[in-house]
């Protein structure tokens, strides 16, 4: 059984709001973030964050400027996150705080722009930067410099399980004594690669996505940044803790889930085992729930086999869109809101649940105390990660 790691601060920015309060309000008022967009002739429903063009990166970090880092900056400047990290620096020292972040596409939008400009000139523009915008570690570099942290800095990129796995890595580093605290999270922003790519795989929905619905027809993309400060000691009596994590590989196919959901089951099983918690004690499951027909069916198999059919479950991707590498962290933080405020967010836009699926899919908000929540994140390459969050006993 692992030691609990407390989320002593957190913040998130997605299409439904900037910060924890705004997110909570949107979840209360049933305001989702999906809307029709059109990019270079491709029309989709997506969840975009407004106002990122106005976000400026401070001082000499301007060299990191790209949509992904503006999204990161918007979150760092919200929920007093920066001040909470500064207080942790005072407690532990800057070299004892690590950075464990995730992104799948980093500064891809700007790289796509650079290649477009190059198709006229034959070469990438002289002011195109690589190391500070496109390179995956640009995000962890930006955040560690922005927050003045000197501990280990790791950038995890395992597609849609990335930022859930960042929590697992951070917990391991703390347990191995390599750092005392960790800034954990994920940031992913919209780019043509993911929009045209998911569309080419015929995985995108015609309208707002409807996870686990009878008539579900695919996923919707979103963009988000989510950060948490992880420490071994709670700072506040109400602090929610990471109690367990479980990771696995499907060893089956690059973009199709295992038919018996073997990898997903293994991730959930390992997370519960590490948390030392019986499956029957889970009060809420935040599903991966992308709303593609095969993903939801495989996850339903995994959940019913590992946890059963009686535990309330919802997917919040109808609110935020699928934020890819940020999804694990965004949904872990939605779980902390549910735990703190005692509610289960509904699966937005899903009216008629697929009759062949057996999970207890929540389609109307439920008010009830929650002590333990489980969050699934599954990605391309058959990469799976499950987190267990809750109040530490």
């Amino acid at each position, binding site marked *: 059984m692992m030691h609990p790691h407390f989320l002593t601060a957190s913040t998130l920015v997605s299409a439904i709001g900037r910060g924890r309060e705004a997110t909570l309000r949107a979840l209360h008022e049933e305001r989702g973030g999906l809307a029709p967009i059109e990019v*270079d002739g491709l029309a989709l429903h997506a969840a975009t964050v407004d106002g990122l063009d106005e976000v400026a990166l401070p001082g000499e970090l301007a060299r990191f400027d790209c949509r992904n880092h503006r999204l990161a900056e918007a979150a760092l400047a919200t929920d007093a996150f920066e001040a909470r990290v500064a207080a942790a620096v005072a407690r532990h020292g800057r070299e004892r705080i690590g950075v464990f972040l995730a992104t799948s596409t980093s500064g891809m939008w700007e790289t796509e722009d650079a*290649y477009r400009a190059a198709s006229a000139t034959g070469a*990438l523009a002289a002011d195109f930067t690589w190391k500070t915008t496109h390179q*995956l570690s640009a995000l962890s570099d930006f955040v560690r410099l922005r927050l003045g942290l000197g501990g*280990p800095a790791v950038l995890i990129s*395992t597609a849609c399980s990335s930022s859930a796995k960042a929590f697992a890595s951070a917990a391991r580093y703390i347990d191995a004594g390599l750092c005392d605290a960790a800034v954990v999270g994920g940031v992913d922003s919209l780019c043509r690669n993911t929009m045209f790519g998911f569309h080419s795989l015929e995985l995108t929905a015609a309208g707002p996505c409807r996870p686990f619905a009878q008539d579900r027809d695919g996923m919707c993309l979103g963009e988000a940044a989510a950060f948490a400060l992880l420490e071994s000691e709670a700072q506040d009596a109400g602090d929610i803790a990471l109690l367990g994590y479980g990771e*696995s590989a*499907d060893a089956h196919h690059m973009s199709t889930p295992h038919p018996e959901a*073997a990898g997903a089951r293994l991730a959930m099983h390992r997370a519960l085992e590490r948390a030392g918690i019986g499956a029957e004690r889970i009060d809420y499951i935040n599903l991966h729930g992308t709303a593609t027909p095969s993903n939801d069916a495989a996850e339903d198999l995994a959940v019913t086999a590992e946890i059963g059919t009686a535990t309330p479950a919802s997917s919040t991707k109808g609110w935020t869109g699928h934020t890819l590498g940020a999804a694990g962290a965004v949904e872990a933080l939605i779980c902390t809101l549910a735990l703190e405020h005692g509610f289960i967010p509904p699966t937005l836009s899903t009216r008629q649940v697929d009759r062949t699926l057996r999970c207890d899919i929540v389609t109307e908000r439920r008010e009830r105390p929650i002590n333990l929540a489980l969050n699934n994140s599954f990605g391309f390459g058959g*990469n799976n990660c499950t987190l267990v969050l809750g109040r530490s006993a």
Partner: protein
Amino acid sequence: MRCQIEGVGIVAPGLPDWSSARPCLAGDSIWQPGALGRVVAPDLPRTEARRATQVVHLSMTAAAQAMAAAEPPDTAMPSVWSSADGDLIGLERTCLALAEDPPWASPHRFQNSVHNTPAGYWSIATGCRGPSTALAGGGDSFVAGLVEAMTLLTADGAERCLLVVYDEASPPTLERVRPVAESFATALLLRADGNVGTPLELRKAPASATPTACEDAGLERLRATNPAARALPLLCALAAGRAQTLVLPWNDTAYELQLGESA
């Protein structure tokens, strides 16, 4: 943190596999880079082998060499895949297609565009369902991957962990912004304890400690340019069977690797 190095793999120009690379890395012969040519991963089924990009073959070939030491095969062990930049040839093709009018995407190329593509293909090829982590650490991707792998042994209690570190040469368009001329991949099969292989101990070093360089000028140039080749001083000591303490920088800090005598 401590572990044992049980298996080693390498793929680079003039260093096609661990046994042929050993004399050169041990300092008994001069490195003759030459062209790497097309690398074909031994584990991949034919359909996957055709679809996989060069970076998948490069990394999986190094992985297969290191895994030859794992007997019997372990299908539950964790693996760590670290690369600063991943699949650049695939990235360039994606960007060129998206720059066309109208833009388009290939479904195959898209599903293979994630950073964990080699990890995914390797798990499919070997049937391994253990935790699989793909990460990036810029120029320090080797030490970032090594530390991640050692935490899986130390904190998660894994008996073994495969570490694969790779970065490919830049396609022409990216040469100016990312000057890496030669591809490099290495793999280490790490074991928590036991009497096999070479002991390795990792600890924090003073930030002022000087990073260990390669003695050979050619290998030193390779080490300095390709992030994955930062493993070379460790590989040279392993090849020579030499106990040595090495310094690897990581951002504004440094780690010390103490390599012991082989069992």
